[in-house]
C-alpha cells in the first residue's frame, strides 16, 4: 500500500529526504516485503514524530535494529533505526551502559573490555543490536534476557515518551523498576511473540566484571584468525562425558562452584563449525571430533582474577570433570584452536558458521527450563532428526542438541537445530514438519518452546495470559499501529 504524496511528505519532513524511501528497488533488500516506506529516524524526537504520524494516518509500523530476524507484514512502515548508533554512556561505577538501538554488541563489548567490563551478548552474535534482550554463551556470568535491562526510554505506540525505572524520577539509569514506573512485563513481553509494541530508543544494560584482557591478541587474516597467545589466567576446554547424566552432574557441580566464566553446551558439530573456515573443512573436522568425544559434552572458559584464582578454578574444574568421568578433547587443547574458540565464544563471532554456512538456512527449537529435563526432551527431538539426516535433507550433526545454564544454576536454555538448504522444497517441508511435531511434543510434555504456535492454543495453559496481553496492547495501542513482529526477542 503506497503512501499518498501528501502523507509521504509529512514523514519526509520529519526525517529528511535522504532518510525515507518507498522505491520498489529497495524492497527486495528488506525481506522481499513491499513496505509502504522505509524510514531512518536519527533520534528519539524523530521516532516520536513518526509514530505520531502513524497514529494520525492509522498506519502500522515496526522498528528494526540490525534487522536480522525480521518477518513483517506487507504494507507497513519499517523504521530502520540504523542512524541511532551511539553509546550514550558507560557508567563504570554503577556498572551500566546506555545505548541506542544500532549499537551492535561487538562495539559495546570492545569498549567494555577496555574497562574490565562485559555484558550479556545473545547467541545470535555480536553483529546484533546490544540493546535487545536475549540469551547467550556467557549467561553463566552475565545472566540473560530481561535481567539485564535497566532503565529504558520507550516511545509508546501512541507516541508518548516513557522513561522507566530510575529514569522516571531522575537522570539515572541504574534500575529498571524504580524509583519510577516499572513496565517490565510490557516492555520485555516475556511471552510469545515476545515483541514489545512501540520503540525502545535507549536502554541501559547491566554490566559485569571481565577478568580477561582489554583486547584479544587476534592475528592472522580472515577467515583464519588466531590468538598470538592465550591471555594470562584464561583457559578453554571441551569436555565430553560417558552419559547425559554424568554431563549434567558436572554442569550442576560447576554451577555450584561458580568457577566457569562460560559454560556452553556445544555439541561436537558446533565446535567443528566454529573452528573451521569452510564447509568442506567443517565436515572433516566434525568426523574427527565425533571420533574423539565419548558422549555429550560442554565447552568451558575459565578466567581467573589472579594467578591464584586461576589455579584454584582449574583445580576445581579438573576434580569435578574427573569425578563425572569427563574427558578433555585433545583437539581443543591445541593452543591455536583453544585461543580462537575462546575469543569467538566471548566475542560471539561465529554463530553464522554454526547456523547458516552449511545450507543457507536453519530451523531451531529453543526451550527454556530445568536443563536436565529439557535435555531429555531434546534427545527425543534429536532422534526424530535421524530420518531427515538419512534422506540427506539436513546436515548430519549427529542429531545433537546444545544449550547452557543461566546464572550458574539448574535453569537454562536447551536448543536443537536442523540445518538445510531452503531451495530444496522437500527438505524445507520435512524440517517444518519436524519442528511442528517436536514443538507440539514439548508442549504436551509441559515444556515451554518459544517456537510454539498460536497464542490461542498455549494461552489457556498459561493463565490465559494471551487475553490479558491483548487487553494491555489495546490499551496502549488504541489505533492498532504497532503490530506484532515475527521474532523472538
Amino acid at each position, binding site marked *: 500500500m503506497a503512501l499518498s504524496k501528501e502523507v509521504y511528505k509529512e514523514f519526509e519532513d520529519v526525517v529528511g529526504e535522504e532518510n525515507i524511501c518507498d522505491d520498489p528497488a529497495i524492497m527486495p*533488500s528488506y525481506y522481499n516485503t513491499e513496505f509502504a516506506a522505509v524510514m531512518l529516524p536519527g533520534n528519539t524526537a524523530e521516532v516520536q514524530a513518526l509514530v505520531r504520524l502513524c497514529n494520525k494516518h492509522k498506519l502500522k509500523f515496526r522498528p528494526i535494529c540490525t534487522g536480522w530476524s525480521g518477518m513483517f507484514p506487507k504494507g507497513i512502515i519499517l523504521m530502520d533505526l540504523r542512524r541511532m548508533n551511539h553509546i550514550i554512556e558507560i557508567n563504570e561505577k554503577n556498572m551500566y551502559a546506555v545505548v541506542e538501538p544500532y549499537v551492535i554488541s561487538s*562495539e559495546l563489548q570492545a569498549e567494555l573490555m577496555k574497562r574490565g567490563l562485559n555484558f550479556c551478548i545473545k547467541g545470535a552474535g555480536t553483529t546484533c543490536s546490544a540493546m535487545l534482550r536475549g540469551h547467550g554463551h556467557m549467561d553463566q556470568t552475565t545472566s540473560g534476557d530481561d535481567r539485564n535491562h535497566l532503565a529504558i526510554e520507550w516511545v509508546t505506540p501512541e507516541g508518548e515518551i516513557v522513561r522507566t525505572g530510575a529514569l522516571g524520577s531522575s537522570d539515572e539509569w541504574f534500575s529498571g523498576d524504580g524509583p519510577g514506573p516499572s513496565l517490565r512485563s510490557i516492555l520485555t513481553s516475556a511471552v510469545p511473540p515476545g515483541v514489545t509494541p512501540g520503540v525502545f530508543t535507549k536502554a541501559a544494560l547491566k554490566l559485569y566484571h571481565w577478568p580477561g584482557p582489554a583486547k584479544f591478541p587476534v592475528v592472522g587474516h580472515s577467515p583464519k584468525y588466531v590468538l598470538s597467545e592465550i591471555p594470562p589466567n584464561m583457559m578453554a576446554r571441551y569436555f565430553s562425558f560417558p552419559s547425559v547424566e554424568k554431563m549434567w552432574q558436572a554442569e550442576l557441580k560447576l554451577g555450584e562452584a561458580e568457577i566457569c566464566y562460560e559454560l556452553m553446551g556445544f555439541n561436537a558439530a558446533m565446535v567443528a563449525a566454529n573452528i573451521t573456515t569452510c564447509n568442506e573443512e567443517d565436515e572433516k573436522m566434525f568426523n574427527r571430533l565425533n571420533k574423539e568425544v565419548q558422549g555429550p559434552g560442554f565447552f568451558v572458559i575459565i578466567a581467573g582474577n589472579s594467578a591464584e584464582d586461576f589455579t584454584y578454578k582449574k583445580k576445581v574444574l579438573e576434580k569435578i570433570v574427573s569425578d563425572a568421568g569427563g574427558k578433555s578433547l585433545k583437539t581443543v587443547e591445541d593452543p591455536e584452536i583453544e585461543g580462537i574458540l575462546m575469543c569467538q565464544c566471548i566475542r560471539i563471532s561465529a554463530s553464522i558458521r554454526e547456523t*547458516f554456512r552449511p545450507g543457507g538456512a536453519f530451523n531451531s527449537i529453543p526451550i527454556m527450563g530445568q536443563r536436565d529435563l529439557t535435555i531429555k526432551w531434546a534427545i527425543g527431538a534429536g532422534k526424530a532428526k535421524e530420518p531427515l539426516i538419512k534422506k540427506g535433507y539436513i546436515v548430519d550433526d549427529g542429531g545433537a542438541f546444545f544449550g547452557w545454564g543461566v546464572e550458574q544454576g539448574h535453569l537454562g536454555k536447551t536448543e536443537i537445530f536442523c540445518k538445510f538448504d531452503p531451495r530444496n522444497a522437500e527438505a524445507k517441508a520435512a524440517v517444518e514438519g519436524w519442528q511442528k511435531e517436536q514443538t507440539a511434543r514439548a508442549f504436551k510434555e509441559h515444556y515451554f518452546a518459544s517456537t510454539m504456535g498460536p497464542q490461542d492454543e498455549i494461552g489457556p495453559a498459561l493463565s490465559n495470559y494471551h487475553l490479558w496481553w491483548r487487553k494491555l496492547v489495546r490499551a496502549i495501542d488504541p489505533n492498532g499501529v504497532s503490530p506484532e513482529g515475527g521474532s523472538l526477542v
Partner: protein
Amino acid sequence: MGLEQYKGDMEMCCRCSACKFIPMQKVNGSQFSYACPSISRYNFHSYSGGGRVNIGAAMLKNGFNYTDKLLHIVYNCQMDGACGVSCNYAMDMEVLQPIQEFRIKCVQDGHTHPALDKVIAGLRKTGAMVPAQGKRGDWAAGLDLKDATKEKVDVLYHVGCLTSYDKDYQKLARATAKILQKAGVDFGIAGNTETCCGGRAYQMGYEADFLNQAKKNMAMVKKSGAKTLVTGCADGYQAFKVLYDKYDLKGSLKVLHISEYIDKLIRDGTLKPRKKVNLSVTYHDPCRLGRLGESWVHWTGKKVPGDKFVFDPPKEYRRGTKGVYEPPRDVLRSIPGVKLTEMTRIKEYSWCCGAGGGVNDSNPDFNLWTAKKRIEEAISTGAEAIVTACPWCEKNFNEAIKESGSGLKVYDIVELVEKAL
C-alpha cells in the same frame, strides 16, 4: 553467464549484516567498526553488500526494474570488496562478484551513469581514464628510460593513467624510475604507447572496454618480451594480475606491484635505504593491492545436490587472505627513521579511500566523504603522515585533507623510498 552464475550465492545471504562491519574479532570499539562506505553513507540496507545481493537475487527471479533509486544504489559502491571479506569470515558465498556482474548488466542494458559514460568516452578516444593533456610519456623527459616497445627489457614498468598525466602525481613515476635505475634493473616503459589497463573501466561496469584494453596491453607486453610487469598503481596491479587472469589473458606474465618489487630488491641487498627519514606514518592498504589483489582462482564445478552449499570439485573462495599486506609494510620498516603505527581498519578489512568503482567520478561528494573518514582514522593514530601505494588513494587523501584543513601529510611509498636512497 553473468549474474545468473551467482544465483545460488545470492540466495545464500542470511541478512546477518556482517558485511557492514569489519570482522567482529577486529572491532575495537564504537569507532572505525564500519567496513562498507556505501551503507555507512546512505544507511538503507540496500546499499550494503547483503542488500545488493538480495536485490540481485530478487531481480533475477522477478525481472529488472531500473528505477533511479536502483541506479543510485548501483553507482554508489566503491566495488572495494570489504563486504565480501567480512561475509566470508563465516559464509561460503560470493559477494563482490555478483555486485560486479550486476553493474556490468546495468551497463549492458544501457543504464549507465552520465559521468562514467564521459570517462569511458575519454578512454575510447585517448586510452586514458583521466583528461589526457600533453603526451602520456612526457613525465619521463630527461630520465633516459628504455622504450619497451622498441627494445627488449626484463621488466616493463606500467605507469598508469593518473600518474602519467596528472602533473601532481608524475613525481611518483619519476621516483619509481629512479629507484629502479638505482637498483640497476633492466626495465623500460611504453611511454606514449602505454594505454590504460582497463581495470577502472571494469569496476565501473564497462566490461567490453576493459577487455579491449586488456587485449591491447597484452599484445604490447608480448612485443616487449618482458616476463615481469611492475605497476605503481593498485588498479593496474589488480587488472594485470587478477582480472586479466580471470579472463585468461595474462598467460605467464609475472605481475608485481612496485612495493613488492622494492621489497624484493631490499631483501636481496640490491637496494639499501640508508638515509634517515624521520617520520611517523600510518599505512593505508589500497583495496586492489590488498584484499582484491589476491590471485584469481580458476574454478568450474557444480553444486553437490543435498543438504549443503558445497561443490564438486570443492570451491576455493577468495576471502582476502592472500592480498599484498606485508611487502609495503616491510619496505616502510626498512627505511631508517620511519615509525609505523597501524590504524584500526587494515589489511583485508581496510577502509576504502573512496575512489573505487568510479565513485570519484560518479559522486565526488561521496568520494570525499569516504576519504575524510580515512583521514580521521589516520589522524587518530597520532601519525604525521598517511602512506599509501596507489596514486588514486593519494589524490583522494590530498583532496580530503585540503577540505578538512588537517595538517596530515600524504605520501606514496615510492616517495619515501626515494628519499631514503
